């Protein structure tokens, strides 16, 4: 459940240092909002999609489109009415359905949102979650915040299992409906969620004491089970990501 976004692999994107990748992710997304013209946004989005193929495999590389499709349909249906300027392209009786400005805006929004989606997909498909946390730590995320993130991931399977156990117990007693959702199903959900919450809340004092017993709050130096690689590789990857960032920002000006 908690590893669903990461795809194991040995692609170029996987090998790239996550700290440099995060820098590129931020630059890439920022570029999609800069007024460079739709052709550049489309080109950058195309690069993200092409990189997703080796990073996630051909089968998974297009899975974000499945999630994007309802929103793309909404953009196509609901954006043109807000933009009436320019040459009229489609009319129905006396109704203007699509103008040149409406078409351009629709394309810009689809390309931008697809680009953002693929930039994030690429980052999380090629970076394990533990490396994401270490990257954020490297960028200055405090220890306590990193601890909260790590512990939350530790608790998700526990609470999921608790929810299944409690709902199974309620189903056996006949107080919780299965199958189609209805009022009785929703009403039966309240005792299940109450039990899950109480069981979760009850673990807090015990876990807090256990954390203190392990040295939380002491001033002694922290150790780290996992570390990100440093040295020459990090330097090279950072230089590479800064160069790519500069190129994607400068390219539209050079072409213009």
């Amino acid at each position, binding site marked *: 459940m908690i590893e669903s976004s990461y795809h194991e692999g040995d692609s170029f994107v996987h090998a790239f240092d996550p700290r440099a990748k995060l820098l590129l992710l931020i630059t890439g997304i920022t570029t999609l909002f800069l007024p460079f013209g739709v052709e550049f946004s489309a080109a950058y989005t195309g690069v993200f999609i092409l990189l997703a193929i080796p990073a996630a495999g051909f089968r998974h590389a297009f899975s974000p489109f499945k999630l994007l499709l309802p929103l793309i349909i909404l953009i196509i249906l*609901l954006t043109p009415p807000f933009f009436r300027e320019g040459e009229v392209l489609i009319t129905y009786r006396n109704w203007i359905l699509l103008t040149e400005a409406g078409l351009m805006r629709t394309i810009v929004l689809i390309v931008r949102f697809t680009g953002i*989606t693929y930039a994030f997909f690429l980052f999380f498909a090629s970076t394990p979650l533990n490396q994401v946390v270490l990257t954020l730590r490297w960028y200055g995320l405090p220890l306590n915040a990193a601890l909260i993130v790590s512990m*939350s991931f530790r608790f998700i399977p526990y609470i999921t299992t608790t929810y299944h156990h409690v709902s199974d117990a309620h189903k056996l007693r006949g107080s919780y409906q299965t199958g189609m959702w209805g009022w009785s199903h929703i009403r039966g959900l309240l005792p299940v969620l109450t039990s899950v919450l109480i069981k*979760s809340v009850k*673990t807090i004092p015990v876990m807090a004491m256990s*954390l203190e017993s392990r040295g939380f709050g002491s001033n002694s130096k922290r150790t780290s089970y996992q570390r990100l690689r440093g040295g020459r590789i990090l330097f090279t990857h950072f230089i590479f990501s800064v160069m790519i960032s500069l190129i994607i920002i400068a390219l539209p000006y050079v072409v213009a």
Partner: protein
Amino acid sequence: MTSSSKNISTSPAYRIVSISVLTAVTAVFTLLIRIPIAPTRGYINLGDVAIFFTAFTFGPITALISGGLGTAIADLLSGYAQWAPISLVIHGLQGLAAGLIVRKHIIKFRQNADNTAESDEHREKGGRKILISLAAGLVGTIIMVGLYFLSGAALYGIGPAAFEIPGNIVQCVVGFVGGYMLTRAVVKAYPPVRDLFL
């Protein structure tokens, strides 16, 4: 139990664990429990239920962090990573606002419970409590729906962003009602939780 809970609840370790557990609860409620809406074939997730529960039970700071982080983690795990930074901010602010509104009332209520013998009667007089909770729900809903509309408009245009408003309102109202009912049920079934408000 009361005094020991209060001592525990002020420790940094307690804060870290309570935020972590409630972050996980928010993520699980968002990911796992989805009520289908027949006409639109969409879903209402129960992430907001967990956020309002946290705000009413654990206070604004815990709701700020666990609400934001929990929904962001849920977005990340369900393939909507592009929404994670936005959810982090919006749901965090939603939890913070709801928690801040009920905070004063809960602290006052706790003092009454400590000082007067009629604390049980106080608990039963829920009219004002419901009003304050309603205000918290309303402000939380306005923040969540308004900020999602603004970020949606920036990302994919005003039209599609406006289309999502009714769904977001329904989700937030369900979240508030569910969160309020769960708070009452949990406090009734496990009274020590009353002392965990930070």
